[in-house]
């Protein structure tokens, strides 16, 4: 019983620390999004900004998932279920990517495409 009480006290401290970390990283997200010094590359959002923004978001999401949703000590069946979900979600996105790939046009050596505009190969 005393161990259970100690565990809960430790759990509460962990939740509080994670909560504070999430607030701090929200501020980091906003700063990265708005401050010009963090606008890597030319003005406006580009691949670098996306990678950085989503990296911070992923870190925050993993804190929520692992600590608040107890995934850091969950049972095996739940992990298998989630793995199944991730595989399916990834497969769905990959299948949609195939819509962007045109094997017929790509076989013609004469032309190359630049985001949909046909230009002659030099």
């Amino acid at each position: 019983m005393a161990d259970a009480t100690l565990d809960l006290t430790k759990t509460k401290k962990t939740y509080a620390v994670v909560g504070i970390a999430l607030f701090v990283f929200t501020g980091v997200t906003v700063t990265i999004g708005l401050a010009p010094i963090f606008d890597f590359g030319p003005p406006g959002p580009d691949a670098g900004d996306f990678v950085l923004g989503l990296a911070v978001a992923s870190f925050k999401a993993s804190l929520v998932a692992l600590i608040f949703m107890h995934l850091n000590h969950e049972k095996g069946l739940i992990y298998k279920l989630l793995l199944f979900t991730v595989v399916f979600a990834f497969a769905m996105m990959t299948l949609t990517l195939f819509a962007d790939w045109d094997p017929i046009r790509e076989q013609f050596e004469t032309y190359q495409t630049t985001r949909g505009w046909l230009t002659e190969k030099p």
Partner: protein
Amino acid sequence: MEIPYEVTPRRDTGLYNAKLGIWLFLASEVMLFGGLFSAYVFLRMGVQDGVDDPWPWGVSVHKNFVWLGAINTIVLIASSVGVVFAWVALKERNWRRYQIYMYFVVACAVAFMCIKSIEYNSKLNHHHGIKLIDNSVMEGAILDKTDRVRFEGEKITFNLQGALPAVLRDIREESFPKFKVIEGPEGVVGNEITSLSSFKGWFADSRRAVFEKLTSERQRYRAELASGVANPKPVSVVSSATLVAEAPFTISGSPRKIVATTEAVVSYKDGVKLEGKRVSDDVIFEVHEVDLQLVIPQKQRDSVVWEVINDDRAKQQFFAAQSKNYQELVEYYKDHGGVVPEEQLRGRYLNVHYVHVAADGHGGEHGKEDKHADVHRSESNPTAGGGGEEEEHGPSKHLIIPRDQIKFMGNHGPRYGTYYALYFTMTALHGLHVIGGALVLLFFTVFGKKLYLKNPEHLANRVEVGGLFWHFVDLVWIFLFPIMYLL
């Protein structure tokens, strides 16, 4: 009989029923939101510069409301912390503390939805865009509902086989005129209609009569054909009606329901024809920003937008900002490869700028009458693609734009563009999840005492499961906020 494994976990899986159930449900929610996020990714990647409508920057769409989005993120994170502490309080068998935390979570949910409604109200009611015939775009505000067609109607002609005429919604009920039927199926000519409710009753009766007449005529025709009559009389039923108003009535016609207007006629999409006199269909607009991304650079100085704005200072302001930003891009690319790429030449940073069209006699003075002055100030953020230069505040001149110069106009709602459609779809769906989750948690708070006294571990499990859903909702917003508001 008790349902097994409601509270105690199964030995093989180590899970109680509800936990397995909620994770299965969350897996399906991952597919739902994952599909929407991947739609966003593909639609954004698929935009072709100079061909499709440009994809806006999240920061430039939301401007001041980026901060509201950040506050919403803090609110949801706080509520997530609240729900885990509520669960711990139940584990410690502290009912009072559990209730306080749960009421805090519900309050956060209400705050989230209130903030969301402020954002939606701004986008749907206070910000508009007008695309002119050469694809130049002005962002600002349509004033006095002048996007609607102002018309004085005298006579309406409509079909009695369809739904209620759309024109009825454009007539105010308190000024509904007295109508007399001058043309129509037999038995209705001469009818007088004095109110909207009597119109609806008359319309329903007439439609039923027309339908019955059509049915009997068709039966007659088929019977005559079957009996060998060579040229049976064709089916001919009068199925339209014309009403004349005792006195002209004004309508404020919704442009989404109207196909065309002339000086004397308004034609609605449902086939209704309204005859009378056009009062005005010019649009009064307060411009904040000019967007020339869809006008090729060689034609930008001669764009229709400058004729509409009719202010040389505003035009100079735009091109001075463009020139300054272009120099910055040339400097940047000199150090990184040499040439400014085409997507930058067509992009937001060069082609979207704040303009201030001063009201006559108030050029450049600071004033308080420009109600959007605080929106303009945010344009000083370079990443918003509009700023860096000094903005001029003060009263803005209201532009009068003839409707034949306008290709498209609307508020910043879902139909304004693909980005906006996705924004409203995803945030509204997320908002519905917030409401649903809050209702469930509120139920556990208000009605949970009985279960707490009977079996507190059972209630703790339920709260854990409800909390898992709530954390998932928070998780979705953690991704939504940077994607929609910052990038």
